[in-house]
């Protein structure tokens, strides 16, 4: 049986073109970017070219000061940690309030929790039933002590895309740093850090067919931030540690491919997504989570009444289809997904959620297969269930 992978929001396979670009950087071009000799300079050049390529995708500039606005990290989690902790500690003389939304990724929520323990104050902005943050709520929440607003660009679970431009504008007017976690949207929808009034932006390589182990943080020139890692002064002192060049080269190649294919890919995936949503909603007791329009072209998130998510995912897996769920049963903590609870689902509803995320290698045939097998699986689980 051919396996069907529909969990691209979790991670993606590395594109073969990216693999090819990376290969020389393991055994041949292995130099340390900090070295002065030939090997070092060869690496340094490749690193800066990669940075240039990626900066081009989000319209980041190389400012007059000469320091690039992009800092490479190991992952989006690291970037988000760097933003929250770095901004908080660099700006604590200005204030101690940080604003986030209630549907952030755990790496933001947990970092914020940690900051609370260090004496910072965290304001969580509620979302509506589609998972949208109302920019007016942010405007109301910003106070004298606020130093940072961090709102996820597109939700990793329900795919809802926020009005980042508007929120950014408010933050700009109020003079507060604005960060967005674009791990899920980067490379999939156009991003322009200037137009969107973003001061900081997080992105990740392995969500866009690049290798794991590379992420980035865009930091607008002039933003005051403290590093997490101190050491040899790499990345303008903002992130010490020898550069993981091969991964960065792969990341840059992946960005290049995304940039080239974004428009056509978006249209293709949107069509597949809408077809899938339409197909799934035909199943009795199925509802869509997240915004019907303002959502990532590759994200489908639904819930089925009287169906438990772990059973659903495992049944699909036995049919060779890989998806994910926000059900409590499947998480290590045995707690339902906080994002689904934040958009107003009851625990028992979050229980029956299913996330299908499409990607570059998803075909219409695969979507058809899912639409075909799912009703039978749901029916079977409901047959076993005492609730009907």
């Amino acid at each position, binding site marked *: 049986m051919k396996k069907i992978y529909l969990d691209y929001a979790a991670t993606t396979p590395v594109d073969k073109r990216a693999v090819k670009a990376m290969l020389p950087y393991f055994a041949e071009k292995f130099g340390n970017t900090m070295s002065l000799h030939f090997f070092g300079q060869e690496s340094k050049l490749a690193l800066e070219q990669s940075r240039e390529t990626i900066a081009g995708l989000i319209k980041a500039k190389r400012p007059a000061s000469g320091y690039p606005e992009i800092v490479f990290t190991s992952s989006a989690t690291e970037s988000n940690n760097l933003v929250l902790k770095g901004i908080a500690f660099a700006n604590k003389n200005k204030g101690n309030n940080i604003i986030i939304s209630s549907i952030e990724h755990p790496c933001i929520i947990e970092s914020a929790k940690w900051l609370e323990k260090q004496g910072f104050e965290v304001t969580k902005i509620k979302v509506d039933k589609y998972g949208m943050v109302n920019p007016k709520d942010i405007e109301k929440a910003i106070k004298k002590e606020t130093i940072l607003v961090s709102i996820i660009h597109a939700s990793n679970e329900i795919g809802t895309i926020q009005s980042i431009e508007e929120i950014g504008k408010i933050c700009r007017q109020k003079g507060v740093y604005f960060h967005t976690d674009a791990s899920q949207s980067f490379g999939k929808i156009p991003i322009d850090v200037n137009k969107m009034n973003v001061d900081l932006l997080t992105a990740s390589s392995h969500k866009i067919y690049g290798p794991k182990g590379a992420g980035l943080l865009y930091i607008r020139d002039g933003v005051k931030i403290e590093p997490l890692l101190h050491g040899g002064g790499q990345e303008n002192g903002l992130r010490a540690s020898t550069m993981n060049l091969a991964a960065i080269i792969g990341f840059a190649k992946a960005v290049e491919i995304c940039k080239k294919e974004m428009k056509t890919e978006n249209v293709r995936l949107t069509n597949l997504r809408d077809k899938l949503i339409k197909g799934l909603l035909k199943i009795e007791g199925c509802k869509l989570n997240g915004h019907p329009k303002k959502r990532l072209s590759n994200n489908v998130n639904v819930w089925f009444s*009287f169906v*438990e998510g772990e*059973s659903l995912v495992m*049944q699909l897996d036995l049919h060779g289809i890989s998806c994910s769920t926000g059900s409590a049963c499947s998480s290590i903590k045995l707690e339902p997904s906080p994002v689904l609870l934040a958009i107003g689902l*009851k625990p028992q509803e979050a*229980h029956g959620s299913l996330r299908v995320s499409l990607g570059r290698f998803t075909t219409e045939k695969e979507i058809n297969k899912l639409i075909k097998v799912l009703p039978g699986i749901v029916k079977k689980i409901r047959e076993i269930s005492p609730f009907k």
Partner: protein
Amino acid sequence: MAKNNNICGGLYTKKVLKTFQNPHNYGKIKNADGIGKVGNIVCLLPDQNIHINSNVKEINNISNKDRVLSHNGEYNFVESGVKRNYEGEVITLKNKLGSVSLTPDHLIFAIKLPEGDKFLRTKNRKGLVPAWYHASQLKKGDIILYPILKQEQDLKYIEINIPKPKWDFKSFNIPDKVSLHSDLLRLFGYFLSEGNVQDKPCRTFITFTLNIKEKDIVNDIKEISKKIFNIKAIVRERPETKTVVVSLYSAKLARFFKQIFGNGAKDKKIPNFIMSLPSEKQKSLIYGLWKGDGCVNLNRDGARAGFVTISQSIAQQLKVLLLRQKIAPSIYIEKQKIVKGVNHQKSYRIHVGQRESLINLCSIMGIKYSPKSYPSEKAWFDDDYLYIPITNIKEKKYKGLVYNLEVKDSHSFVSEAFCVHNCGDVMWLYIKIAENKKKEEVIKDIKFETFGCVAAISTSSVITDLAKGKTIKDALEIKKDEIIKSLGGLPYIKYHCSVLAIDALNEAIYDYFLKNKKEISAGLQKKHDAIKKSKEIIEKRYEKWA
């Protein structure tokens, strides 16, 4: 056990997946003879019990004659102790009541506090939902629920059936049966703290050694012994040691005291019939004990009452007694030491400093105490539990045997992995009963309906296979281990699913018995009550979600 470790991450065995894909016996039975409905869609099932005071080192001494306090507030007999080899981390959790060492996967009934301390305010306490957590998930500050002993058995009289020794010609004669009321319990209290039995042939009697200033106790002992046993207490003052010795010359009474309380200050204990008396009556015992070995100091900075004993049993038992009076004690161990050449044995100190607790203790002691300030309290009571925060957590490496207990009647376990969390599985079992050739009742047909995860569906299927064709008696004997074994193992965090299946079967049989007006054994009734109660608690706690 060790083999199961590799599936701990949440991966299922092939057998589980096979059963999950093709479950047996699902669906409904029309006109079922019994239906068992267990589980709750919204959340956890706190229907497993745990003896929090278990200790990796001491648990090995527990035999199946012992009883342990379960989380439903009852003393239950230990059915069996399971031991296994263990190498790895051991977590020591400390709170004011003492410390306990557990493996990280051990479950504890506790509350994880949301961020911020506002949840500790009285009005927010109701919203806190206790659940079972693995020891490794708990942090300093999380609240542990300590059960309050609920079982009560009043006793109006006690019989003193000690034959009079042959050589005893001169000791005072005492009645064979005396009523068990507050005066006697107070005397018991004095004895437990200050008393001693001299047990030599022809010289068997009870002595109380008191401070020369404790005249009120001396008079109380005199009066009580006169009134109840018609014994004249002999009082001898010894000004050189600043003590006064009160002696009761009755060999029979002395032997009786020795029999029920043990002898030697270190080995004294409170007998079970006193432990299960109504809490109102026990106040007199606490009065006697505290009057003897305790003190109440309301004048120091931070009013406090203290009690010292060298008997570990007395310290632990007094803790249980105090909890029933809604008094939260703190227990400290004082190491053996030599002060000014005098050897002080290892002792146990009980302190009561919490405001509400001290008020309750003072009312027992008849002391007036009306504090003015209202300090914030981190520990509190409800009818069933003392809620008390973890004060310290330590991890250390351990290699050796670890023990678990299975506790009778409350299907409670002090066990390694009964995570009963927000998994929210619901299981309904239908049974059809028929008679076999021997005229025994047999489960002729059984079907299930389950809302839940892979493990819940697989365990449902397995229990129907296991129960089908069995006599009711045998079906009630099915153990969780059998279910887990027939699935080739389950991830630890899914063990609770197997317990859920057993609960469902018990409930179905209970339902059948009830409908047909058959005799229900005390054990089954107890199980049913426990399941029902936990269900009610959860539904109440989760009203806001419904």
